């Protein structure tokens, strides 16, 4: 296969800088490397699924990456916890790989970077090792400030929605304090949890107790508004939106999985705050 790599217009930032150098590198056609390429394509698929992408986007990305390195038929099946790819490569072999995904969260910045990366791969066909490096760089980069931004996110969301749903400024401050407590809770325990429903239940019990405490020490006035503010941090809004988008595009299985999980989390939140109210 001839290679006419062209830098894509849509690549931005650091990716464009190195695009020039990569034109000189020998771009390898699929053949002996097909296994490696498929593995890297699965890496990107997994990374996207972990960052909260829609199923169609993931399947599309994997097919495009494989076909950028060689013709042939690519079959992908993706649900929330599994990716299966089978590729009939140009030299006639059939390669199948699967990937089990255990945990996922939402990180929209990573999603965007992975999207840009896959465009770059399709346009420039870098060697497999380089893809691995870049995916690692995206998934492991921990900006020093990102912690503070996240903390600010917890505080601002809780405080603003406490006011939004009919509280006053003091309720906002109380909800902001609960946001800090929730951030600390997530910071310590989020990485240990396997089951998101049970974890949401525990988080909302903690948040509920914190809300009652802030009202008891007279920081907040209306317990209702403070609690609603902290509910808005926990509520699975993204799950519901993503489930709708998946179902609309024909991925009914994943849509139902996401919807079921979102509903269970919503019930768990209600139960958790209820337990806190009954306990104290």
């Amino acid at each position, binding site marked *: 296969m001839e290679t006419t790599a062209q830098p894509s217009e849509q690549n931005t930032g650091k990716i464009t800088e190195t695009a020039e150098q990569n034109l000189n590198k020998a771009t390898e056609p699929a053949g002996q490397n097909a296994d490696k390429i498929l593995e890297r394509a699965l890496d990107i698929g997994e990374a996207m699924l972990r960052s909260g992408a829609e199923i169609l986007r993931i399947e599309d990305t994997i097919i495009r990456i494989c076909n950028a390195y060689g013709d042939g*038929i690519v079959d992908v099946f993706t649900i929330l916890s599994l990716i299966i790819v089978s590729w009939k490569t140009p030299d006639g072999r059939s390669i199948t790989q699967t990937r089990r995904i255990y945990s996922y969260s*939402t990180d*929209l910045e990573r999603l965007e970077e992975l999207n840009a990366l896959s465009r770059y791969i399709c346009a420039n066909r870098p060697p497999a090792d380089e893809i691995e490096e870049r995916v690692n760089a995206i998934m492991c980069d921990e900006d020093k400030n990102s912690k503070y931004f996240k903390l600010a996110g917890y505080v*601002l969301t809780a405080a603003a929605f406490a*006011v939004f749903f009919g509280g006053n400024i003091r309720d906002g401050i109380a909800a902001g304090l609960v946001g800090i407590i929730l951030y600390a809770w997530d910071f310590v325990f989020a990485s240990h949890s396997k089951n998101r429903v049970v974890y949401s239940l525990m988080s909302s019990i903690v948040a509920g107790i914190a809300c009652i405490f802030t009202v008891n020490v007279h920081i907040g006035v209306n317990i209702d508004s403070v609690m*609603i503010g902290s509910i808005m941090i926990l509520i699975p*809004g993204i799950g519901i939106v993503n489930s709708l988008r998946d179902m*609309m595009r024909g991925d009914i299985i994943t849509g139902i999985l996401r919807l079921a999980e979102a509903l269970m989390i919503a019930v768990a939140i*209600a139960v958790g705050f209820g337990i806190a109210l009954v306990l104290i």
Partner: protein
Amino acid sequence: MTAKIAEFMNDYLAVLVSALIGTLGYCLLFNVKKSRIIYCCIGGTLTTLIYFICAESGFSLLMQNMIPAAIATFYAELMARIVKAPATVFLIPSIIPLVPGGRLYYTMSAMIDGNKLKADMLGGQTVLIAIGLAVGVVLVSVCFYQIASRPRYNIRFERGKR
């Protein structure tokens, strides 16, 4: 007319500002790229504004949530094409002020008080709002997806191909 607008703004200014800050917080919570946050905040505030306009105009509960959700989706899909980013990035923060967190809480609270009638009513409203949001999002998204529909892969059984 201007007096009416002034009165409206006077009533809802605090709510709009809090929606703006809440949307900003939600963007930070889910790590939206810094250069996109401004568009998300505009979307969230716009959605809230339209929600309250619909509420003032006396639409039903379903329509009150469906119309802003549809407009938020339209905004998100439009921005996705202008700024060249996935539509989810703009859709999720824009739609978050509509999520019925308040009703969920009051439903739970009524259940604990043993007020079954109130709990049923509020629970029903929560579900109705969720359906309204879903229909709003789906209605607009479907139009966009029909324009750029699913590409055809895996063509094995077609004339002239293998």
